Structures are given as structure tokens and as C-alpha cells.
């Protein structure tokens, strides 16, 4: 795959339902599983599958992207040939923020010059440890212009978390992209991942820009599926779509199941992320920790159950954290209680405070907030 495929991670995903976590950062850099950002999973899946040329089409909140990715060192993408490229919009253009098609148009030269003949187009918010090699073999073997990757869903009627996501519909040899309204039990879910021949990709982008009917790449591709040879390839790996706060919370707690964690962290290679050099976590006298994922740099003297602690979190004596996700640098002071909550970075929960959300509605504490 190394010289044949270039990855393109198209940021600017819909953030409407996860505003709390995306106020200061794009979905791509929302922290996950104690030490990662969401985009780490896609980047690592790509590099572990042998892709060495990866571009990130960014929309906004660049500081966060830049802070995390820099020049791609942590993913071995600091290369002379290929490597990481961040594609910025041209802010001189009034239309720069209209849609991702316009942003792609600004950066078309990058795709014209590359040597790889296929593009793997993805988003950053479908979590998985994915081996793309098999899917690419299928794409090459069938010699289709576009191979749409999907994930098979069963018991779809009960999956409220998948409402509104893409459904791939095959009819009379053609493939269409519909919307899941919860009326079907079994379907192939679209996960916004495509192998596209580079020339076809360029053609679609240019044509859509010229005609001006669409603003978004996904719409441009969806409308042209009838024009090209298309196949659907269903991935075996578990995929966790993250587009709402509730989904984020559920996915976070889901990785506390050990087999799920093992698949996500190890199955087709490791997940790489930016290194922060925190020391090992320190469990003090009297600490009680159970069914939790704890990152380095934490100091725990209190009780932690069914929770995810990111780096450098302090849980003081007598404090109790349950069913919660606590971001980097937060402090849970003595004798306070946190249950069913998501605490953004460097939040402080003062002594004796009680914070209580619900499994179906986690309490959110913003970045740097001090509840004292």
C-alpha cells in the first residue's frame, strides 16, 4: 500500500451534538481513552496499514491541531518523501469557510503532484483499530473507481445512537447513500471512508467546484456515485462513531471492557500519540481503584470506579470518582464526589462538592472550570 495510497483525513465534521467538547478544539483532537486524541486512531490505522503519505484537511481551531500533530513526529510521519501535510484553507478567499470543497480547491496542487494513485478519504471521528490492507486489496482487485467502506449493523432499530448516520443502499447494481432513520434492522452503515482513484477524486472535486451545486465533498461524491464504478466493502473491525456527547461518553466507558480495549489498542498495531513525559501513576495509601483506565502522571488517594483518568489528574483523600471521564490536569479535591460526569482539562472540583449526572445525561464541566 505504501506507494499506492495516500490518506486524506477530512476534518470539519459535524459538531452540533458535541459542542461541549469542541468549543476549543475540533472533533479530531477531542481527548479519548486517557492519553489519545480521536484522530490518533485514524492516523495510527493508516500508518499501521503501511500508508506513509497523509494529509489533514482542516477547517478551524488550527492551534489545537498544530499542538497535537506538529510535523507528525509521533506517527513517524516526519518524512522527506510523503509524510504529514496539513492542508489549510486560504483565508484570503471569502469563500474559504463555505465548505470543504472550496478548501480542497485551494489545495488541489498537493493532490496533483502526489505519486500515489489512490486516495483513502476518511474522517477523524469513527474510532477503530483498522487494517486497511484487505479493503485496499478488494479495491484494487475489483478495479472500481470508488470503494465505499462500511460497517454491518444488526438490530438497527434499537440503536438510537446510530440515527442520522449514512446507510448504503444498493439498488439495481448502483449504490446510493441514504440516511438511517431507525426503520431497518440490518444495513450497511456508511462510515465516511472511501478508497478513490486519485484521478476520479480530482475529477469529482473539479467538476463540483465548477458547477457550484455542492459545497461539501461528501455531497459531491454521493451525487456522482451513479457515474462511476462503485463497490461496498464491509469492515470487520469494531467502529465507534463519535458525533455526540452521549456517544463519546458511552464509547469511553465501553473501552473499560477488557476485550474491547485490547482490540482498540493492539489488534492491528499500536495507537501512536503525542508524548508528554509524565511519570508513572502513583497510588497512595488508602486509594481504591476499580475497573478504571488510568494515565501516567495521576496521583490517587481517593476512590475511583468505572472511570477514565487522563494524565496528571489528582484524586485527593476521601474524594470519590465514579462513572466519569476526567481530562488531563483536573483535580478532585478531598471529600468531593463526582458521578456520571465529563470533566474537561484542568477542571477543579472543590472540597466536599457533589457533582451528579446520569448515565443518559453526563454532567459536563468545562475546560479550566473551578467548582469550589
Amino acid at each position, binding site marked *: 500500500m505504501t506507494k499506492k495510497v495516500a490518506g486524506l483525513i477530512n476534518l470539519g465534521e459535524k459538531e452540533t451534538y458535541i459542542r461541549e467538547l469542541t468549543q476549543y478544539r475540533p472533533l479530531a483532537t477531542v481527548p479519548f*481513552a486517557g492519553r489519545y486524541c480521536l484522530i490518533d486512531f485514524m492516523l495510527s490505522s493508516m500508518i499501521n496499514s503501511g500508508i506513509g503519505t497523509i494529509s489533514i484537511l482542516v477547517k478551524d481551531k488550527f492551534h489545537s491541531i498544530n499542538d497535537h500533530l506538529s510535523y507528525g513526529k509521533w506517527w513517524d510521519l516526519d518524512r522527506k518523501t510523503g509524510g504529514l501535510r496539513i492542508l489549510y484553507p486560504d483565508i484570503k478567499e471569502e469563500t474559504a469557510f463555505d465548505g470543504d470543497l472550496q478548501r480542497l480547491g485551494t489545495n488541489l496542487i498537493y493532490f496533483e503532484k502526489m505519486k500515489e494513485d489512490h486516495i483513502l478519504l476518511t474522517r477523524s471521528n469513527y474510532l477503530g483499530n483498522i487494517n486497511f490492507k484487505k479493503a485496499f486489496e478488494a479495491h484494487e482487485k475489483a478495479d472500481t473507481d470508488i470503494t465505499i467502506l462500511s460497517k454491518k449493523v444488526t438490530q438497527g432499530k434499537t440503536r438510537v445512537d446510530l440515527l442520522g448516520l449514512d446507510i448504503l443502499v444498493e439498488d439495481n447494481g448502483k449504490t446510493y447513500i441514504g440516511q438511517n432513520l431507525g426503520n431497518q434492522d440490518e444495513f450497511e452503515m456508511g462510515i465516511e471512508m472511501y478508497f478513490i482513484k486519485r484521478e476520479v477524486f480530482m475529477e469529482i472535486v473539479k467538476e463540483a467546484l465548477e458547477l457550484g451545486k455542492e459545497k461539501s465533498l461528501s455531497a459531491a461524491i454521493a451525487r456522482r456515485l451513479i457515474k462511476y464504478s462503485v463497490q461496498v466493502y464491509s469492515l470487520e473491525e469494531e467502529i465507534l462513531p463519535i458525533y455526540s456527547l452521549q456517544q463519546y461518553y458511552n464509547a469511553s466507558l465501553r473501552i473499560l471492557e*477488557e476485550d474491547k480495549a485490547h482490540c482498540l489498542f493492539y489488534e492491528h498495531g499500536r495507537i501512536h500519540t503525542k508524548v508528554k*513525559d509524565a511519570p508513572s501513576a502513583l497510588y497512595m495509601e488508602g486509594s481504591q481503584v*476499580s475497573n478504571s483506565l488510568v*494515565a501516567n502522571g495521576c496521583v490517587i488517594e481517593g476512590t475511583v470506579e468505572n472511570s477514565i483518568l487522563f494524565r496528571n489528574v489528582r484524586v485527593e483523600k476521601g474524594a470519590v470518582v465514579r462513572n466519569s471521564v476526567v481530562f488531563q490536569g483536573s483535580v478532585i479535591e478531598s471529600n468531593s464526589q463526582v458521578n456520571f460526569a465529563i470533566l474537561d482539562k484542568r477542571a477543579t472540583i472543590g472540597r466536599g462538592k457533589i457533582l451528579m449526572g446520569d448515565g443518559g445525561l453526563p454532567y459536563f464541566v468545562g475546560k479550566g472550570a473551578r467548582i469550589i
Partner: protein
Amino acid sequence: MNKEKMIAMLLAGGQGTRLKELTEKNAKPAVHFGGKYRIIDFALSNCANSGIRNVGILTQYQPLALSMHIGIGGPWDLDRQVGGVEVLPPHMTTQGGQWYAGTSNAIYENLDYIDMRDPEFVLILSGDHIYKMDYSKMLDFHIEKNAAVTISAIQVLLDEASRFGILNTLEDGRIYEFEEKPENPKNDLASMGVYIFNWDILREWLIKDQKNPKSSHDFGKDILPGMLEEGFNLYAYSFSGYWRDVGTVESYWQANMDLLDPENSLNLFDEDWRIFTNNYNVPAQYISPSSKVERALINEGCIVHGQVKNSILSTSAVVKKGAQIEGTILLPGAIVGENAVLKNVIVLSHETVEDGVVITSDEITIYGAEDYGMVINRREL
């Protein structure tokens, strides 16, 4: 700024025989410490944090894991276009070749490297001590005293002083006598094996010492006493803070256990003086519902199902269900089987303690034959 004027030469070729199986396949500076580090990380991070940009690392004994660990120096920001880190093993020349014969001979054999860097001052370090120190402050002291050599020194217990090089000083820190491992020490001020030399003076002395057939080519035994005798300005820079020479299994174990005290003076949690090391891209540690963890230092990638007390768990170590460990150090990738009971054990890297094994002793037991010092690539569970 003076900082650019000084380069560091880090002696990392020692075997550390008294560490037994820990150094069977692994040089002492590469021995794992404190859950995520190797001993050499402390000296290297001190260099990085002190603003030293050129570090030559002298290797000799079992260099494989050590060389892999250092690489091009990335973790310590020593992967530079200008300067950076160089690993300097013994080498052949047209005159033949030999192993490094002593600490000062090792530096002598690398005169070309130092000349190439052309420094004003050379900092000589040892890669086998656990401490945090700002070498730039020591250099300020060296310059202020107009010294030829400054030796960093720390107060030790008088009972133990005969294990060290002891410095007898005047009030202002000037050294009038240097005693290497004296039987009856007059003083409790011990050399830490950290020296700053004026390069022009050291260069001359290295060449002179090399020609002396009676010399053992050692800083403590030959160079420093010789210079003192000839009336050079030698100063002691007194350091206070955490410093351990983890030369024995017992002291290694104790220094690890020191980290369990949240008030310990090494303070690994100080964000202004971070200890850098390699990273292995493993997930956060998982502590299961069947576990009980108290007074423990646990690193990334660990999985704990059993009971852990007063213990250190290095990268990707596993404690299975029903196992109980106390006063135990698990090196990277070590696995403790179900219902095993360990007390005061050091389990070497990648060793598996089988289910139900019981090892409890007041003495420290090393489990496993050899520590290759490698960190596991992939965990299969």
C-alpha cells in the same frame, strides 16, 4: 550565555556487577528504574534541562539495549542539526585498538570528538546515578571560583563515607585533599563523580596521564589527585537533594521504593524538571474490579487484576487475578500468574511468574536469569 560553552561526556560503559542478573545482559545505565525510566535518563534529562546541547556517551559493557534506548537522542531533544548526542564506543585505530582502560582513558580515546566540538568546559558525568541537578549552576560556580576543576559533592553518612571519594575542603569549598575510598574518612563530603574541567587543562592532563605506565587512567585515582598535587584550583560544589548510586540490588530496590513516598525529594512530578525517556505507545493502565492497589507506582500499559502493595510496575507489566505482590518491582512486560504470591521480588523484563508460585522472603529475590532490558513490542493476552 555560558551554557553553550560546555559539552558533557557521559560514562556509560560500566557493568555494575553487584546488580547481579539485572546487569547480566544489560549495562547498568540501561537498567530500568521507577516504572518507566532507565537509570541513564536522569543524567541525560539533567543535560537537556540544563541546556547542554552536546553529549558524548561512552559505552562499552553490553551496549545493545543502551544504544537502542539512546538512538539519536530524540526523547531528550538531542536530535539536533548542530551538536546533539553521539554514542562513543571503543574503537580501532591504525595503532590497533583496546577497550577503555579507565574513566579518564575513555575520554582520552575520544579527544578528536571533543576537539571537534571545541568547548571551553567539559562536564564529566556518570550514567548510573539517580538525581536531578542543574549543571548550569555548577558551571556558574566553576567560573566564579576560577577553578580548574569543580567536583560536585554531597554529604553522606560518615559510616558509608569509605565507599566514596572523599573531599576535604577549606571553608570556601577549595579542596586541599582528595581521598579515594579512605579507610578512615575525615569528612562526610563525597564526590558524586560529576566534574567540570577547563578543557585546555584536562586535555593536557589526559595526554600526560596516558603516557604514564603506572597510571590506572582513572579520574578519582590518578587525574584529580595529580592535579591537586601540582597546585591546581580544585573546588567542591556542594549539592543537596536526592542522589543515589544504585550500585547494589538492595540500594536499587530501596531507591525504587523511595518513589512510593509522595513527599520523596526526587519528585518525578516536577513539571519544570521532567525526566525524559523513550515512549512505547501503549495505552493507559487498566485496574480491574477484582484488584486492590495501594502504595504503588504503575506505568502505562499495565493490567492489574490482583493485589498490589508497595510495588513498582513498569511498562506493560501484568498482575493476574488472585495474585498478591508486595515490595515487588516488575520490570517491563513481566507477568505475575494467577494466585502467585510475591514479596520483595524483582521480576526481570518479560519474565513470567507461573500461576500459584509463591516467593516470599525478607531478602530481595531476583526472578529470572537475564534481563535483556528490551521493552515488549506487543502484548498478547
